[in-house]
Structure formats: C-alpha cells, structure tokens
C-alpha cells in the first residue's frame, strides 16, 4: 500500500515539533478543590503534576469529576492523580505518540527531554492534528512556489551567458502606487527561484529607489538584469537631479517635503538603505539632467565567494 503524505509526516515529524511548550503544571500538594479554577481559567482538561520540579503524575478532568462524585473530604491532588505516568521523549517520531494514544486511551502525555529527564511539554491528539495540518499547509505552499518556478529557464536556454531583463515604468508623484514595480520585480525573482536573502535585498533596494523616483521626479524607469550570480538594477529619471551627491549619501540628509515625511519616508535614509543592501552602488547625477543609479546585488553563492565592497 502506498504511503499517503500524512502517513509520511507522522514518521518524519518529531514530538517536539507539535507539542505545547508552555506547560501549566500543578503541585502535588495542591488541594483538589483548586483544580476547578485551574481547568476553567486555563481552558484545559488535564495537567501534569510536579513535586520539587519533578514529574510525579497527571491529573485530568475525569479524575476531578470522580473525586467530586465521591463526595470525599478535600484531599490533595497527590492522592487522586494517575501515578504511572506514561511519557514520551521529545525526539520520538509522532507515530510513537499516535500508537501510544491508541493503545492507552489517554488524553495527553507529558513530554520529557531524553538527556535531562526534564518535563519540556505536553502533547494531545489535537496537537498532533494541528501540527500535521500546519506542515501540510507549508509543504503545499512550497510546492506551489515550486510549480511557478521558472528557474529551469536558465538550463533550457542554450548560450554561454544568459541575462534576463525586466523593465518597469514608474510614474512620479503617484504615492499610492509606490512600490508596485518593486512588488512585481520581487514576485518575478521569487518565481525564478532566486534565494530569499537576495530577493529581499533586491526588493528593499528597488523599493527605496522607486520611492525616490515618485517623491522627487516626474517618473522614470527601473531596469533589472538577472544573470547567474547577480542581479543589477538601473534606475533612471530625467530630472531634477541631485545637486550634491556626496551630501545626499549622508545618513539623515534629506530634501523631502513634509508630506513625504508624514507618510513614513523622506528621512534621508533611502540611499543608505540601498547601499546597505547592495554589493555595489553607483550614482551619477547633475541638476536639471536627471539621475542614474546602478545597484548590483550578488546572489547567494557569489556573495559567499567574497563581496566586492
């Protein structure tokens, strides 16, 4: 019989991936009558019992009801709890947990760290279901990205060097659409399968450059070139240009009007942010002529090999 995805996950995933880590515990000498508040306030139906920091038992709502039904004197938890505590190790595969739930019919198990014997969590059937579902969702998402991935394009194209070029037009003063080009470029690079660190750097650098076009110019163009090992963006506009490029590169120096600052930009950090993301940055500008900005960002492997800035 072929394994389903869920069966696979139950073997692959470990108890510590799905267990609840914030454990509510009660002391063995707590009176039974106090359990009512614990169960009600914490919305739980059972909890590990500890004495001097060590796990000594488990007390459940069922134990509590039995005690109530017996109309006994108020006694301490120690006398009513289940003492043979069945535990699971945190590094056991989920399938062990599943079979133990099946075999013993308990609602929860305390989870112990193998090396130290410390109580590190609690696991219920609900935790297992939630954990597996979450994993399925993540896997599905990754599969989806994979399906869209166009990275094979580099393998299918037969050439000594391949460069992909994407162009984006940016309209000046259109603050509401600010970031649209960067967003589209980011999506494209993700689909090409570029590593997330590179994609994020490109996105942030392009976004700052795009905001500069919108705030200071009548608009311009962003041209992104993707080749194996690097992404290069060239951002061009036809004015007004920067009078003192050196000054503009100083952190905190800004000529942005107040309305831009009110929107969370224009604090004189844009070019610095671009520089921070880039492996290489060039800026050429003259008043009345426009600005040419070139940003190079190396991809994962190339960056490891050594930065050029």
């Amino acid at each position, binding site marked *: 019989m072929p394994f389903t995805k869920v069966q696979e996950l139950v073997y692959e995933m470990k108890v510590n991936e799905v267990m609840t*880590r914030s454990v509510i515990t009660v002391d063995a000498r707590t009176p039974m009558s106090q359990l009512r508040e614990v169960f009600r306030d914490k919305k739980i139906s059972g909890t590990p019992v500890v004495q001097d920091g060590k796990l000594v038992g488990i007390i459940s709502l069922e134990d509590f009801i039995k005690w109530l039904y017996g109309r006994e004197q108020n006694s301490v938890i120690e006398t009513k709890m289940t003492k043979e505590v069945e535990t699971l190790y945190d590094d056991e595969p989920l399938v062990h947990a599943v079979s133990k739930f099946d075999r013993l019919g308990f609602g929860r198990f305390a989870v112990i760290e193998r090396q130290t014997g410390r109580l590190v969590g609690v696991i219920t059937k609900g935790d297992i279901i939630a954990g597996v579902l979450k994993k399925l969702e993540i896997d599905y998402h990754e599969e989806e990205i994979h399906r869209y991935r166009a990275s094979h394009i580099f393998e299918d194209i037969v050439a000594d060097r391949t460069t992909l070029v994407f162009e984006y037009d940016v309209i000046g003063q259109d603050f509401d659409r600010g970031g649209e080009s960067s967003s589209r470029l980011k999506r494209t690079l993700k689909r090409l399968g570029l590593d997330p660190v590179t994609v994020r750097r490109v996105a942030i650098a392009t976004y700052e450059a795009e905001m500069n076009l919108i705030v200071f110019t009548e608009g311009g163009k962003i041209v992104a070139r993707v080749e194996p090992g690097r992404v290069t963006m060239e951002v061009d506009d036809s004015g007004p240009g920067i009078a003192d490029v050196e000054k503009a590169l100083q952190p905190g120096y800004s000529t942005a009007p107040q309305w831009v600052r009110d929107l969370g930009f224009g*604090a004189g950090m*844009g070019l610095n942010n671009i520089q921070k993301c880039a492996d290489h940055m060039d800026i050429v500008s003259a008043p009345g002529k426009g600005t040419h900005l070139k940003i190079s960002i190396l991809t994962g492997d190339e960056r490891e090999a050594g930065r050029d800035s």
Partner: protein
Amino acid sequence: MIFVRSLHPVSGEDVAEKMKLEQVRQILNAEVITGENLLSREATMGCGADLMSDVLAYGKPGSLLLTGLTNQQVVRTAEMADLVAICFVRGKRPDAETVKMAKSHGLPLLWTKVPMFESCGRLYKHGLVGVSEYGE
C-alpha cells in the same frame, strides 16, 4: 499553586521566543482587520517604527511591525522586508485600499487602542525580542 512556564530557552545564543499572532492579539487586546485565519503564524521578533525606511533598514524577516502609520506604504514595506504581520497602534485604522492590498498578499493586519510605547512594552514583557537581540 499554578506555574505557567515558558519552556523556551531564553539565553542569548539559543532560539528566541516566538509569539503567535493570536497571543499578540490577546496581549494588546487587539482586533483583527484581515487575516483571521493566519493567527497561528509566529513572529520571531518585534519592531516598532513610524519611519518605513528604518523598518527597511533594520527590520528582519519574521518581524511583527507595530506602527502608527496606516497608509499603503506600510503594507508595501512589510511585503518587501518579509514581515509576518502589522499591528496598528493607538487606535489607528487603515483605509480600505490598504486592507485590500494586505489581504491580497496574505498579510495579517491587527489594530489596538494601546499606544506605541505600551504596545512594545507589553509584548517585550511577554518574551518577544527586538531585532538587535535576534541572532542571524
């Protein structure tokens, strides 16, 4: 006696405390504007800022952004910087366009009446670390 313990290691080198958005919602008494189904997502750290350039410069992937700004650029910034969610503080709410954009990117938005300083303080007190404390 009841102990509510967090069993995450808290020392510097180890994995930092993660916080589910559901916890954030409770701690800040916040309401969910969009992304009700994404509250099991975890923020690995918090970042409070009204200057988006600062978020772009210092925010790290996996951060929760607390901000008093409500325009579309806040959502764009979150998208570019790979943030997990935005919580608008001191009772500010974004317009419909901004919400629409967040929804289309699967970015949860929350809002709380709690002011910025107190929002950050409450989350920090509950174990959410800042970007400078979070290891690479």
